[in-house]
């Protein structure tokens, strides 16, 4: 019988030195050497003289910059679910792949300094918002608008504004105002965030060359919310920098307040209505319709079976179905029919080919030994198959025409074969014919030698041959036929001194012959 086997959910994870094509290596994080921020490079030089030593120092301020409130369009390698598509995403968590392998750890969520190799909490999050939660759309504004919103109900990120120059504060960015309750409800908690970002190395052999990241390191941020089915969902990559006290797990801000967050990337997708799970549906099949061989289901035959019951059981289990049909005489009867798909392997029967379908009707598929009475039913299976084949052929006029041409070719070929076979029978010496070099003639380009041999022996052969005297009328004068001379040429031959020699000369002289 057939049994469903377990599900496979394997993925190719690389963990060796060399990544195979299609393998992925996962990293908890790829940390930047320095997180973004303001730094001071302090150099100190001590010059020791004979009498005293002098200290020189130099402080060079510098800034490690990195994406903060906006991204370049090509920083995003891929988003899932694909933008503006409708699909079955009800059990998928959206994610975004960045080409910058260090992006989620390039700054800290609270602006603090990162120390050493400690993996910081990612400052990026991927929010999934349902349509009813989007009160206002994504707006373009300046950095100043983001940090100090005009409306006191709108809470911007808590970031020290003094670090920005006036020019920086005037730069445009995208932001969205999210109702504070929604923000507090759908954002990942501070404990969730570390699990939602990772880096990966992908063998890029099977992909296009990606320019800067041809080595195939990417960072990935995963959403924490399943999409709403049957609705358009918005996926927003937002900066949580300065928002750490408002995300889920904190006391919600006032109910009528809005949280203003910088949107680094966003896209929409539609999750189609729920349809269930692929594997679950397939796993449910054995209990629903069943996994079986194709046959007509029937109740159990119980007790001691009569011969008829045995026959019926055997027929049903081997795929036969009793169906009503009309005989040619019009009588209604029940006959066995079996689909081309049968429950067990078949072997070729010795019957056929059949010229008409009635020849394929079998009587009684029951036990074949003469002691057992048959079921008394016809088996119309193969007659049906024959008829379907014929109907398919007749319904396709191009095929019917091809068949007709093929038939004509078959007949013509038969005629020709017959003629040659007759002649060959009468010319036994032909089999000994050889080329002048003594080799048996095998190839067509050796034909001229055969012609010469023929020429030398023609007279003798002709006298020995007892050839048919009757020539089909249409063959007499058709100059296109092989070896046929035009009527006037033929007349010249007949009037010559040696008609046979003349004829053969004309025939095998290149110009006159139409092979």
């Amino acid at each position, binding site marked *: 019988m057939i049994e469903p086997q377990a*599900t496979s*959910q394997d993925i190719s994870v690389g963990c060796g030195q060399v990544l195979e094509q299609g393998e992925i290596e996962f990293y*908890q994080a790829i940390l930047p050497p320095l997180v973004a921020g303001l730094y001071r490079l302090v150099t100190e030089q001590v010059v020791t003289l004979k009498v005293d030593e002098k200290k020189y120092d130099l402080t060079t301020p510098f800034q490690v910059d990195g994406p903060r409130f906006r991204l370049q369009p090509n920083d995003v390698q891929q988003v899932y679910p694909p933008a503006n598509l409708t699909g079955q995403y009800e059990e998928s968590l959206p994610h975004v792949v960045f080409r910058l392998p260090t992006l989620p750890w390039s700054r800290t969520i609270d602006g603090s300094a990162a120390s050493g190799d400690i993996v910081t909490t990612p400052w990026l999050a991927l929010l999934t918002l349902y349509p009813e939660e989007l009160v206002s759309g994504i707006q373009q504004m300046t950095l100043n608008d983001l940090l100090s919103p005009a409306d006191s109900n709108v809470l911007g990120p808590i970031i020290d504004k003094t670090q920005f120059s006036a020019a920086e504060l005037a730069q445009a960015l995208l932001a969205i105002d999210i109702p504070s309750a929604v923000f507090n409800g759908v954002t990942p908690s501070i404990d969730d965030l570390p699990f939602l970002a990772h880096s990966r190395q992908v063998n890029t052999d099977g992909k296009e060359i990606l320019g800067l990241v041809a080595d195939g390191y990417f960072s990935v941020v*995963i959403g924490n919310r399943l999409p709403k089915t049957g609705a358009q969902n918005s996926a927003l990559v937002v900066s949580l920098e300065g928002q750490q006290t408002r995300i889920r797990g904190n006391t919600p801000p006032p109910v009528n307040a809005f949280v203003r967050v910088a949107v680094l990337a966003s896209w929409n997708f539609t999750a189609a209505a729920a349809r269930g799970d692929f594997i679950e549906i397939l796993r449910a099949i054995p209990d629903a319709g069943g996994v079986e061989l*194709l046959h007509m289901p029937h109740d159990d035959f119980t007790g001691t079976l009569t011969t008829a019951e045995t026959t019926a059981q055997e027929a049903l289990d081997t795929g036969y179905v009793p169906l009503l049909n009309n005989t040619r005489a019009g009588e209604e009867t029940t006959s066995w029919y079996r689909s081309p798909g049968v429950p067990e392997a078949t072997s070729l029967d010795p019957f056929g080919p059949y010229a008409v379908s009635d020849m394929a009707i079998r009587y009684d598929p029951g036990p074949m030994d003469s002691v057992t009475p048959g079921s008394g039913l016809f088996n119309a299976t193969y007659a049906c198959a024959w008829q379907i084949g014929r109907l398919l052929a007749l319904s396709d006029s191009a095929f019917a025409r091809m068949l007709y041409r093929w038939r004509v070719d078959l007949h013509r070929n038969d005629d020709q074969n017959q003629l040659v076979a007759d002649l060959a029978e009468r010319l036994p010496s032909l089999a000994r014919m050889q080329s002048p070099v003594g080799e048996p003639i095998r190839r067509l380009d050796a034909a001229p030698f055969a012609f010469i041999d023929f020429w030398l022996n023609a007279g003798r052969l002709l006298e020995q041959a007892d050839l048919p005297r009757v020539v089909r009328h249409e063959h007499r004068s058709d100059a296109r036929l092989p070896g046929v001379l035009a009527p006037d040429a033929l007349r010249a031959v007949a009037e010559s001194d040696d008609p046979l020699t003349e004829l*053969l000369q004309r025939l095998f002289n290149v110009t006159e012959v139409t092979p």
Partner: protein
Amino acid sequence: MSRAPMHRRAISFWNLVERSAKSLDAEALAATDPIEIPPAIVAWLARAMLLYGVPFEYLVPHPAMLPQESFRFFHIDQNWLLRLVEGAVSAGVGSSRDAIAILSQVDAVVSAAADKAVAVRSELRGKAAPQADPIPTLTSTGFLLRSTVVSGWVGLEISASDASGNPLTLLRIDRLSPTVLFCLIRGVPAKIDLMEPPETLHFGVLHDSGGYNVALRGLGFGGFDPGVQIMPAVTAPVPPVTGAFSGVLDINGAATNLKNELQAKGALSPQGTFTSCEFAIQMVRAAGLQSFEPKAN
């Protein structure tokens, strides 16, 4: 000598010379030279042998044979295909002479068409024909799947393999109706895999009556290969966050559950590390794959 016989002899000469040039074998001279079966006829019959055009009622004569949500495996009745081909070529039979000429060709036609049938699917897809294999050409099997997965997952992928794991050629894959999938396989498969259309590797959860969960994958420790699902399947629940906003998952809680389940299996590293990368491996939702194993009765 009269003219007519001479003319006739000349024709016969030509034929003889032509034939003798090919081979001087006396038997070959007498043997008939079979005419090639037109390729267009072979191609048409090859499609017919894959049951293209056969009404569904003749494939499944009774609705009870294919109830909703069912999988039915079958062998193809070789005699049925022979009769089908005989019926088809019979359309060219108009006389007893035709019958002899054409029906004597049936064996050749059937084997040519069966050879061709292997290439029908690859031709439809514009791909190279599969390599010839030693499976007898008429030995094919197949299955019918009537399920909502057929309509829900349009790019559903099928693969079949024999007992030694070699992939078998799929002769035909067709949706006969929105929910009925018909597939013909060359040879007798030991395993049939139905695969969700592979899209981007993505993250997600499985959903069943008990809520959301994920099936654990090995991490390369404790004898569990990295990325390979731990068998028998172990799942860890992914708790949703209770509150006004549906669909939000408690990621930290899920991570804790996953870590505990993996630890119980001994599949964690000796240090017990469980970070975002281990979490990502667990949460990847690979294309679902369900195998069916047809076994002999």
